[in-house]
């Protein structure tokens, strides 16, 4: 299974720019399928970005975050070759994690 997480983390000297894309349906629970049945809510609730054992960003998401969610931020420090670990957990208890190298 290929990872559901894509990360681009680029060190710029004093900080690291991070962009991530996660493959997830982010079903809001308000949309009906073609048979008129409500598709149950299925969305990511938290995403954490861990750099050297420190959570640099925690995202709390509701069902209004778009399908295949995207996030962009920057944290202080970070050097080329360092690890950045991204983990998400959804409302059904599913989870995925990926460790990417900072470039």
């Amino acid at each position, binding site marked *: 299974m290929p990872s559901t997480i894509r990360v681009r983390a680029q060190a710029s000297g004093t900080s690291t720019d991070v962009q991530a894309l996660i493959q997830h349906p982010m079903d809001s629970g*308000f949309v009906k399928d073609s048979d008129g049945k409500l598709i149950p809510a299925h969305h990511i*609730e938290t995403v954490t970005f861990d750099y050297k054992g420190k959570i640099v*960003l925690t995202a*709390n998401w509701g*069902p*209004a975050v778009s399908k295949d969610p995207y*996030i962009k931020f920057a944290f202080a420090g970070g050097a080329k070759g360092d690890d950045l670990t991204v983990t998400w957990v*959804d409302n059904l208890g599913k989870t995925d994690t990926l460790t990417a190298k900072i470039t």
Partner: protein
Amino acid sequence: MHAALSSNETTRRATLRLLALLGVAGLAGTARADAPGWPEQAFHQKTPDEALKLLYGKSFEMSDKVTLDVPEIAENGAVVPVSVSSSLPGVTSISILVPENPFALAASYKFAEGTAASIGCRLKMAKTSKVIGIVESGGKLYGASKEVKVTLGGCGG
């Protein structure tokens, strides 16, 4: 999208409230394994004020030190690029709210010290609405708001 909200949601919220009252919210986790620390109640409020009260225990004031970047007309309500940044010092959190969505709170970010006060993401919008960006700095909340016109709602899939 809004029609679907009424009965189902009210019942579910009533049930959740009841469970919380009985102190068995933890047990309910077998059916709905919420991620630890996810502020469920805040995410289930219809108005920004209620959501912010549950999330931060306070309300916000408008500030020109909060920059909200949103399109004037969303090309599709399913994917609206939103970014919030601030020149305020010591930002600990940024939240984004869409008052016209079924639930006002869309996303909330907690920053570690040293993380730049800037976030970019993509949100669903059911219809034309204000988008509110909230920045927490020095224990206070500051906000900026802009309207985004939505002609294709983001909730029909």
